[in-house]
């Protein structure tokens, strides 16, 4: 009796924990998805009258979603590719120098800047009347603000990509430096050189594969985060095409009730894509670690 009492208490506490987890961790996600799904098929919503697939068809035919998906993928992919390249180059080239206390602290500083501040700062630098435009004027390269090239709210998403790179690169640099140290890549590199490999072979066949193999899940995760980024493209993006989150919110928050359902169609597709990506990323490699 004395044994079974604490056990039943323990089970009770564990059950309460799982109920709470279900209520906060799972239920809202399921509820949000089901509501968006029902709305997209016209089954809920003030302006809807019953089951229909017309919103899915019209979303597909308008092409806005496909354009937005391609645009978001290209922007996020380009940003991640450049960020990974810069962070890897800095890791391989300057890892010893970056251990200096001043540089070690400086590397962490960008992490204190949230996306909305980074976007605001980029706008202040790259806008037509921004800081770089003023410098161009001072050097005589332009005589009016409008002669400065479009670097924000531009069709090539230069401002968005620059901001994403400035946000993601510091994270990746710190991550790569940690992996480089923890996986003893230096020792592996020395071993490969003593076995006859040259510098290039050591970098391409030893150092890079070890670092990337240990971090690809996180790189994938950053790609997903950038795919759904909101603040940065909201401030620095253009009217069309827009990145996915901006498009979804524009559709859902508009006053035209008849088009609300199309916003939910995009939200459903986005959720399915992101969830599938999460399953693919984490179902195999679930041994997540932390810097303790």
């Amino acid at each position, binding site marked *: 009796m004395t044994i079974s009492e*604490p056990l039943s208490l*323990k089970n009770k506490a564990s059950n309460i*924990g799982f109920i*709470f*987890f279900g209520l*906060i*961790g*799972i239920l*809202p*996600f399921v509820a*949000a*998805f089901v*509501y968006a799904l029902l709305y997209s098929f016209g089954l809920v919503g003030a302006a809807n009258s019953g089951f229909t697939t017309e919103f899915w068809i019209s979303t597909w035919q308008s092409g806005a979603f496909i354009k937005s998906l391609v645009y978001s993928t290209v922007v996020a992919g380009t940003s991640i590719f450049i960020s990974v390249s810069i962070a890897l180059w800095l890791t391989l080239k*300057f890892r010893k120098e970056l251990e200096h206390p001043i540089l070690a602290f*400086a*590397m*962490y*500083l*960008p*992490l204190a800047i*949230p*996306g*909305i*501040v*980074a976007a605001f*700062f980029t*706008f*202040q*630098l790259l806008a037509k009347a921004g800081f770089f*435009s*003023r*410098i161009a004027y001072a050097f005589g390269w332009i005589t009016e*603000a409008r002669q400065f090239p479009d670097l924000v709210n531009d069709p090539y998403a230069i401002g968005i990509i620059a901001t994403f790179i400035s946000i993601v690169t510091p994270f990746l640099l*710190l991550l790569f430096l*940690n992996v480089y140290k923890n996986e003893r890549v230096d020792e592996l590199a020395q071993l490969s050189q003593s076995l006859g490999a040259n510098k290039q072979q050591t970098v391409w066949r030893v150092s890079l594969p070890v670092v990337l193999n240990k971090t690809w899940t996180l790189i994938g995760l950053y790609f*997903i*985060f950038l795919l*759904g980024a*909101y*603040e940065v493209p909201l*401030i620095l993006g253009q009217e069309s095409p827009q990145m996915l*989150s901006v498009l*979804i*919110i524009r559709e859902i928050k508009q006053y035209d009730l008849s088009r609300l359902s199309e*916003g*939910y169609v995009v*939200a459903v597709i*986005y*959720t399915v894509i*992101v*969830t599938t990506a*999460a399953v693919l990323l*984490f*179902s195999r490699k*679930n041994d*997540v*670690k*932390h*810097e*303790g």
Partner: protein
Amino acid sequence: MKANWKFFFLAALVILVVFPFAYLLLLSMASEWRFPELWPAYFGMRNWEQVVSSETGLISSFLVSTGISFSVATMSTFIGFFISRGIAYHPYKRTITLLTYFPYILAPVVFAACLSYFFLKLGLFGKPVGVFVAQFMVAFPYALIFFSSFWGEKTKSYEELVATLGGNQLQAFRKVLLPIAKNMLIICFFQTFLISWFEYGLTSIIGVGKVQTLTIKVFLFIKESNFYYGALSCCLLILPPVLLLYINKRYVFNKLI
């Protein structure tokens, strides 16, 4: 020569890193800075003095942000710590952990937009408590993922040792598990504080402009083209994480998920 280019490159890198902070501080102290001037016509403390004395609402936004972020961080850290134990020892740990990622990985703004109907029905729309609940839904899974690496054979054997010596579950937590998890609890608290502190999209949807956190203020000032106050809000937004960095770098950077 080689050492020289490295030195100059790294010096440039440090300048590049410090530049946004310096520029935003400069802009927050500027006024009447029109194109093509390289230096503002006015430079001083006027904007900062107005923040303290006038109706810009920045001080109240700072307090609202602090209150919400503090509550979100406290609740998600402690509840996350206790519930993550059950998940870590569960036979379906992998599946449950995967489910935990879903709300975390989804763009918070989209998550909030799809949930807004339920918040409206529950009377949580446009209220600080609604923003707290919504942010908690994002920070809580993060805490669960964060603590998943804490629980394992080692902690299990500690718990068993306490039980063998006659201690109960509460004593195991108070005397053993919480003390050894102290560092992780602190890091998780600051991480979840920053998740909430930096949050914009979800707050704008659930708060519908009525709950004006600092990130909402920054966006409002940008929309009004009031860049000086925008920069000032940015400075207030950056201040706590910079302080945390100064105290301990690990508080701001965790190898994430």
